[in-house]
């Protein structure tokens, strides 16, 4: 489709609405946050305009470095696990009848309506010693006595994967539905077993979709701050937890803002790196 390039100011009017929305809901708050991150904190909860970089200097410590590393590692793990589960699942889902697909998608959408708090407490019950799933294992004779599976890293990971999985499936679904079903059939006629064809034809053919989904889940998981607190120990707390803690309980807005800005920059850098690596591989292929 060819269009005339815009000539007058009036030609740009369709852009006005999205531009205003973007400014009000993104540019203004984010700029405010950047500004606040350089302000000086007042004892007693407030801050005064200033230009200090102490707030950034403060987390150049081993403690914050460790938390940042853990947060990124957790988000990456959640992203990888989610895609690893959701991709084959969604692929198989697209092979079922329309009716089955609709039922599954409706169920997944209803999981999305659960808040992080509900998911957190539901899993904390499921992982508890008194009422948890280990009781079922004991009843089945697989375990001698019930155990508490939380707090712990496994519990945090499970909760976050559970929370992100429906998003992952819903993002992958359109791409997989549109995929030419004869690709796998062709691989099969060429001597590949269905599993082999899936791994070396379907997965690489959708590499861009997979990378985009990984990034989405990664960013989504990075923002999770309730589940690590409900299901984990303090050493499983992510940077998001610390930001909330600083902003709300310690009333240290400038420091919270500085951490938030830093987190955004780091995640942007990681996303950029992923795209760069992906793009380079594309170019050589």
């Amino acid at each position: 489709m060819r269009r005339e390039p815009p000539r007058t100011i009036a030609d740009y009017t369709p852009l006005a609405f999205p531009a205003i929305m973007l400014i009000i809901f993104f540019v203004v708050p984010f700029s405010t946050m950047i500004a606040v991150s350089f302000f000086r904190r007042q004892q007693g909860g407030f801050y005064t305009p200033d230009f200090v970089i102490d707030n950034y200097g403060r987390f150049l410590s081993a403690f914050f470095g460790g938390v940042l590393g853990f947060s990124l590692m957790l988000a990456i793990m959640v992203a990888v696990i989610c895609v690893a589960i959701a991709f084959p699942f969604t692929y198989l889902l697209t092979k079922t009848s329309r009716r089955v697909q609709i039922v599954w998608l409706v169920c997944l959408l209803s999981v999305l309506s659960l808040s992080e708090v509900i998911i957190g407490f539901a899993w904390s019950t499921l992982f508890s010693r008194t009422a948890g799933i280990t009781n079922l294992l004991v009843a089945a004779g697989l375990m001698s006595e019930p155990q508490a599976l939380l707090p712990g890293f496994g519990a945090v990971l499970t909760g976050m994967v559970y929370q992100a999985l429906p998003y992952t499936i819903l993002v992958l679904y359109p791409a997989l539905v549109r995929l030419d079903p004869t690709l796998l059939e062709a691989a099969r006629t060429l001597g590949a077993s269905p599993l082999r064809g899936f791994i070396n034809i379907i997965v690489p053919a959708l590499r861009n979709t997979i990378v985009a989904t990984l990034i989405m889940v990664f960013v989504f998981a990075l923002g999770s701050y309730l589940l690590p607190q409900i299901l984990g120990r303090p050493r499983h707390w992510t940077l998001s937890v610390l930001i909330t803690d600083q902003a709300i309980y310690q009333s240290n807005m400038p420091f919270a803002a500085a951490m938030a800005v830093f987190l955004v920059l780091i995640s942007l850098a990681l996303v950029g790196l992923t795209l760069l690596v992906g793009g380079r591989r594309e170019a050589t292929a």
Partner: protein
Amino acid sequence: MSGLHLKDLSKRFGNFTAVDDVDLTVPHGTFVCILGPSGCGKTTLLRMIAGLEEPSAGAILLDDEDMTPVPTHKRNLGMVFQSLALFPHLTVGENIAYPLRIRGVDKNGQRKRVEELLALVHLPGYAARPVSKLSGGQRQRVAIARALALSPRLFLLDEPLSALDAKLREAMQVELRQLQQKLGITTIVVTHDQREAMTMADLVVVMGEGRIRQAASPIEIYRKPADAFVADFIGSTNLLEVKADRAGRAITLGQPIAGLSLPKGMASGLVSIRPEDVHLAGSANGAFRGKVTFVRDLGGTIETFVEVGGTTIVAVTTPRERGDIEAGTEVGVTLPAESCVVLKQ
């Protein structure tokens, strides 16, 4: 016996029978065209042979070996899909090498075979191109080369040429036929273009509503169609209702066709006669008298529409063998008995 044998093969989708009791023997090295109108079950039949669809009944034998329970990837066949199904993330060379890679052929062997196959389909030096940068005809050739990479026992193609323009299609038909003869591989092509089938096939299988209507050589299908469906589907034809008189002579349009009689016990039926077999005589001295209603001069051939007793008969002639016949003139129409095929109604 060596070759492919389909034994009473059926496929039902719920209550709907897509392929109905197909029985067919294809000798080794034969080029078969499956021909039929849309929705008659051609693709379903091909997919059953490939193992992509499980038969509801019947068996598929290849060189006397029962293939029915063998999964697709162990059947060693080459298939070209209507969508071609080239792997979008791989280059031309990688696409063709994919089946070799699966068999564990080493890199050198792969490269040599790819070169060989690309030469075979007249695309030498294309190995490093991405498939997205190819034209329709080139993609076609890559799909063919990929399907042939493992020297399959059976070569299956589902409407391989339907996406190409008319000129390229005709060229590819000839090319495909020559390729098949060179390799001597048993080949089954699905098409709904009867010209394509006539050009390429040793054996034409005409299907209608899931059943085989006739399986024979192209010329036999054309000259001796088994029923009205086949006669009508293959080329254009004049179909006339006939009745037997007491002596068994064939009566049509109120008058006998000279020298033609219906088989014993057949009271009525249809006569099929090809337009190029109908003779016209300028002065009305033929067996039938009719009036020319329309003349279509195509340069190389002339189609003349003659109305005889309310029925239109089409005659095709070359300009040389035909006198000056214009719309509105009275002509004599001769239907030579040796060109008439009597069909059951």
